[in-house]
Every structure is written in C-alpha cells, then in structure tokens.
C-alpha cells in the first residue's frame, strides 16, 4: 500500500486494538462484550495485514500462534464453566464473589468469560483471514 496508508495504519492499529480491549473488559457494564471486543481485536490485526501485506503479519502473529491461542481461549472458557462443577457440583455456576454492581471487578466469572471469548474470537477470525489470503490457487497439483 502507499506510504500514506502505512503511516496512518501505524497510528490507528494501536488505537483500534486498545478500543477492542476496552469493549471487552467493560462487557458487563456497558454494551459490547466478549464477541464484539474479539472481532475488533481481529480487525486491528487485519487492518495491519491489509496495509503492510501478508508477509509482515506472519512475523507478528503467524498461524501457529493463532491456533494455539484459539485453543487456549476455548479451554479457558470451558474450564471456567467446569469450575462450578468441580466446586459446587453445578455446571455453569457463577461462584466467584459478585462485588459491587458498578465497579469493573464486579460480576463473578462474567469478565473472565469475556476475556476467554475475546482471545478465542480474535485469534480465530485472524486465522480465517490469513488462511483466505495466503491460499495460493493450484497449490495441490
């Protein structure tokens, strides 16, 4: 891409990434949540790939790391659900302290679940994008 686009993306990628993290962390207080935050994080990486081209991205976040991150996010979410089963015998129990309603650290496992979903959605969608762009037709002849 042209130089202007590269310079602008250098500034905006960080902001978009931060915005995604904000949306995800405040999921239980303001609108948005794990999914919206995850997709925004994925978009910030895609934004970078679009501006700087595919090979640059593989240095930053190649597909191996993305698969590992994605599986880890999934396992984290599943273990949060199993937490309730191990301690209190009920599958999806929200057993962490609920805290004060309007503070950030307030709603038991909901913020942790949001973080797990964000990791999984972000890594997964970025992986889909890199796979689709890296796909060279006629590769298997």
């Amino acid at each position, binding site marked *: 891409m042209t130089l202007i686009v590269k310079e602008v993306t250098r500034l905006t990628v960080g902001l978009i990434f931060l915005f995604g993290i904000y*949306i995800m962390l405040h*999921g*239980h*207080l*303001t*609108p*948005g*949540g*794990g*999914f*919206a935050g995850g*997709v*925004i994080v*994925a*978009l910030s990486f*895609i934004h970078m790939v679009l501006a700087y081209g595919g090979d640059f991205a593989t240095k930053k976040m190649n*597909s191996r790391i993305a*698969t590992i991150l*994605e*599986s880890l*996010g*999934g396992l984290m*979410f*599943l273990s949060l*659900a199993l937490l309730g089963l191990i301690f209190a015998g009920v*599958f*999806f129990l*929200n057993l962490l302290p*609920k*805290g004060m*309603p*309007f503070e950030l650290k*307030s*709603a*038991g*496992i*909901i913020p942790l*679940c*949001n973080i*797990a*979903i964000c990791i*999984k*959605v972000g890594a*997964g*969608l970025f*992986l*889909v*994008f890199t*796979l*689709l*762009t890296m*796909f060279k037709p006629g*590769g*298997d002849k």
Partner: protein
Amino acid sequence: MEYITLTEADQLIPLLVFMIIGSIVALEIDDMLSSVIAIGAVGVGVTISFLILKAPDLAITQLVVEILCLILLVRATIKREMRFPRKHADYLRIISALVLIFLFLVFSYSALMGLPPFGMPIMKVASEYIARGIHETGATNMVASVILDYRGYDTLIEASILFTAVLGVSVVLRSVGRIRNEKS
C-alpha cells in the same frame, strides 16, 4: 416548536423497505462486487434498526461482524472481477420458487396475526431477569448477564461453533487432501 415524535414503528417501516429494495438489488445486479456492496448497505440498515429497537449491544456486534463479512466477501470476489454473464434464465425454476414463496407469505400473514402485537411482548421470564439480574449476577448490562450467566451454556457452545468454523476453513483450504497411493 413542537417536534413530531415518530414512534419506533414509523421509523422502522421505511428502513425495512430500504433493506428489502437493497437486497433485491444485491441479488439482481450482475457485477458481483457491487452486489457485495449492496449487502453491506443492508447490513448497516440492520445495525441502525437495532439501534432504533434499543439494542446497543447488538448494534456494535452486528456492525463489526458486518465489516468482517464484507472483507471476506470481497476477498472471494475481487480476484474474479468478471461480470457474471446472464445466460437464459430458466423460467420454470423462477416461477415455481415465486409460487412457493407467495404461499409461504400468505400463510405467514395469517399466522403472524396470532402473535402478541409489536411492542407488547409478554415478558414472563424476562421480567424475572430484569428484577433479579443485578443482585444474582452483579452485571449491570442485562444482556451480558443473560448470555454469560443465565444462558452461559449457549455461549459456550456458540464459541465452539466459531472454533469449528475456523477449523473447517483450515481443513478445506489445505493444499493436499487425500494422499494419492500409487495404484499397483
């Protein structure tokens, strides 16, 4: 200067008509790239209607997912810039599809009469959520408490659907599927 207050229904009807026209345009246009853009417009229309219907959570998610869908759709069409040649449209298929759809619509019109009118939902379970939500889950955003605590089981499965889709994409796009064993 008294403002004319448009009820939600009045705001939504023109938006829905715009979306229907947009989707018909998206289907009928020959050039694939412009039909993808028409779909983007319909998607943004859906986001605006979510805002009108007081669902900010959904508006953010829908807008962001919409952007991603557009990027993927453009990826599938950009390399194939060709205009799709309109061959002889087989009229039998179109007629039968239209008749089927017309019947479906007539049947649905009378069925929709039985539902509670727009704007007056019977919120039997929802009123429980609203009343007890903030104490039991501690989250102030009711939608977040519903998707992660009351019905968190759905969201666990839904996150694994995304995991399956990503796995499916990596399986479909891998270069060598079946190892050709050399025939004797």
